[in-house]
């Protein structure tokens, strides 16, 4: 098996949130993503998806644990040493507009990383190098060359996301962490961008960590899926296995809650879960999901389950994992 491109080991991320309180946004997260894989990160708002994404790229420094990129421990590297490595890992965000300076032309915006970073031989790129690369990047993301001279506001949300992707790809990264990159787009446009991510992965051999709250989008693009709840991974495995026959009751509830564009002849479906996600400042003891779990037992209230393999290669943090329905 190939070595992981990016690996998280027991990551913890704590924020002080006033009155001496500590919010544990990540509580011991471990995972490994191999070259060419697409790891989908799903879970409800505040479960720590973005925090994890930022820690993986060292845009945030975790409170504890290790991040290893391509064999190098980058957890505590100073910015100067980190910089050359940064070219290999890039991020794409949800808000396509906020990440683009409205007063700069698209050409300047995409060229910026090319100007800041030196090329593979440690040389500054010439104007000719940059122009050639810009032309290549626009082709790659399906934008006309004329886009270079225009400003961000002249583009639709979907096209702006293409611009962001071109910029993220400028330095030929190997890893792209995309945080809800299609969540703000209309479905018809969302499909274009999901397809683009899939094409780029095939053409460039990219590895993705793809954060999204939309399970159907995640299923479409991911080879593996990690389901998070209150700062921890509760289920991790092959995308088809996890989404077709979930073993964790939370995964099952997430799938059941998705409103599907099909009118069911069986009439209305009952909501799969009651209540909201508890506050991450005071997560429930025992299994963190026990306050909402439809099959919780006494043991779940005191004894926190750890991730383990129920026998089919995935990992599940539950004392009573669901039987495979497949």
């Amino acid at each position, binding site marked *: 098996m190939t070595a992981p491109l990016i690996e998280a080991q027991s990551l913890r991320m704590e924020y002080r949130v006033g009155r001496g309180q500590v919010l544990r946004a990540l509580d011991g997260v471990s995972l490994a993503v191999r070259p060419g894989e697409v790891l989908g990160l799903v879970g409800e708002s505040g479960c720590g998806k973005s925090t994890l994404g930022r820690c993986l790229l060292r845009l945030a420094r975790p409170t504890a644990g290790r991040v290893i990129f391509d064999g190098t421990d980058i957890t505590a590297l100073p910015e100067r040493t980190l910089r050359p490595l940064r070219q290999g890992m890039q991020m794409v965000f949800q808000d396509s507009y906020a990440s683009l300076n409205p007063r700069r032309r698209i050409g300047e915006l995409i060229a910026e990383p090319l100007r800041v970073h030196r090329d593979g031989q440690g040389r500054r790129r010439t104007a000719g190098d940059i122009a050639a690369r810009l032309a290549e990047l626009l082709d790659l993301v399906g934008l006309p060359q004329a886009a270079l001279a225009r400003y961000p506001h002249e583009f639709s949300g979907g096209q702006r996301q293409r611009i962001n992707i071109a910029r993220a790809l400028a330095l030929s990264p190997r890893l792209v962490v995309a945080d809800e990159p299609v969540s703000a787009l209309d479905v018809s*446009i969302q499909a274009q961008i999901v397809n683009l991510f899939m094409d780029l992965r095939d053409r460039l051999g990219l590895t993705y960590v793809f954060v999204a709250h939309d399970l159907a989008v995640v299923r479409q693009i991911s080879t593996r899926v990690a389901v998070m709840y209150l700062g921890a991974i509760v289920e991790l495995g092959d995308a088809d296995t996890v989404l077709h026959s979930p073993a964790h009751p939370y995964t099952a509830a997430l799938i059941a809650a998705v409103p599907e564009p099909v009118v069911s002849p069986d009439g209305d479906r009952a909501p799969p879960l009651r209540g909201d996600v508890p506050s991450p400042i005071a997560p429930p003891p025992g299994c963190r999901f026990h306050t909402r779990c439809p099959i919780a037992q006494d043991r779940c209230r005191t004894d926190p389950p750890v991730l383990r393999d129920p026998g089919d290669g995935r990992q599940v943090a539950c004392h009573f994992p669901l039987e495979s329905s497949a």
Partner: protein
Amino acid sequence: MDADAPPLLAVRDLTIALPVGGRMVTIVDSVSFTLGAREILGIVGESGSGKSMTALALMGLIDAPGARITGSARFKGRELVGLPQRAFRTLRGREIAMIFQDPMTAFTPVYTVGWQIDEQIRAHGRVTRKDARVRTIRLLGDMGVPDPARVADRYPHQLSGGLRQRAMIAMALSCNPSLLIADEPTTALDVTVQAQILDLLRRLRREYGSSVLLITHDMGVVAETCDRTMVLYSGTIAERGPTGAVFARPGHPYTAALLDSIPPLHGARPARLPSIPGSPPAPADRPAGCPFAPRCGYAHDACAVRPPLLPRGVQDIACVLPAEGRDLPARCVSA
């Protein structure tokens, strides 16, 4: 629905134009629909399709200077188009209530949620503060708020998103409105909480006898909640009809393409998602003929003239294909 009774709401040729860069631009163009008692009608469309504008016009909430609203919207026989603001104010809250994507816009941060619902109840009837509170607590309980008496004493920011949304719905229902307009009421919520709120909306008509106009961009939400569906594209109706029919056999290429572009949650994963090329036109750049023509895989000469909304079976479709005897194929879906 009683076929002879007049509908609760009858909208005809509702047209909304706004001044943009020195000329009037039609944002919503000749939209017509009816809403019966205890019915849930979904208005679905992508951003900029005119969904929210339609709702705001019905509530008398379009305050853009120079806006021109024409056509007719009769609510319980009363004309809403041209109604003076004072009359709208008495209608809103009492007869027509609205809930939004962001419940923080419905509440002021400085008072408790219970106090604000009490006030809403007292503003529309002679009720003592004590009786109002009893009713507030009952409403919150009905909306699935656990421990409603305690939640009533909380400030809006102290509540989770799901609880705030329930509190807003409780406030909207406090005066038993016959029409509830819900504009993207679950868009900001997590799926598991969204499922709870949709369940609540479906119960409203049974338990409160309300009709609901549900505005959303999410085809899944419509499928699970609405009796009838109206699909808007670029300010015009593309298609409308009973939800089951629209989803099983979409008659308009836009509806069909929109449904196809949603990645499936079950069954085989397509290698590529069918997508619609391009993006919707800005209202000022809407083409003269069928507004969907620049993106439509079926576009041909006949589409250069704007197709009227014509009945086809139980649906109404604004496309030339049905009249040409070229109906779209039924969808094959595995649920």
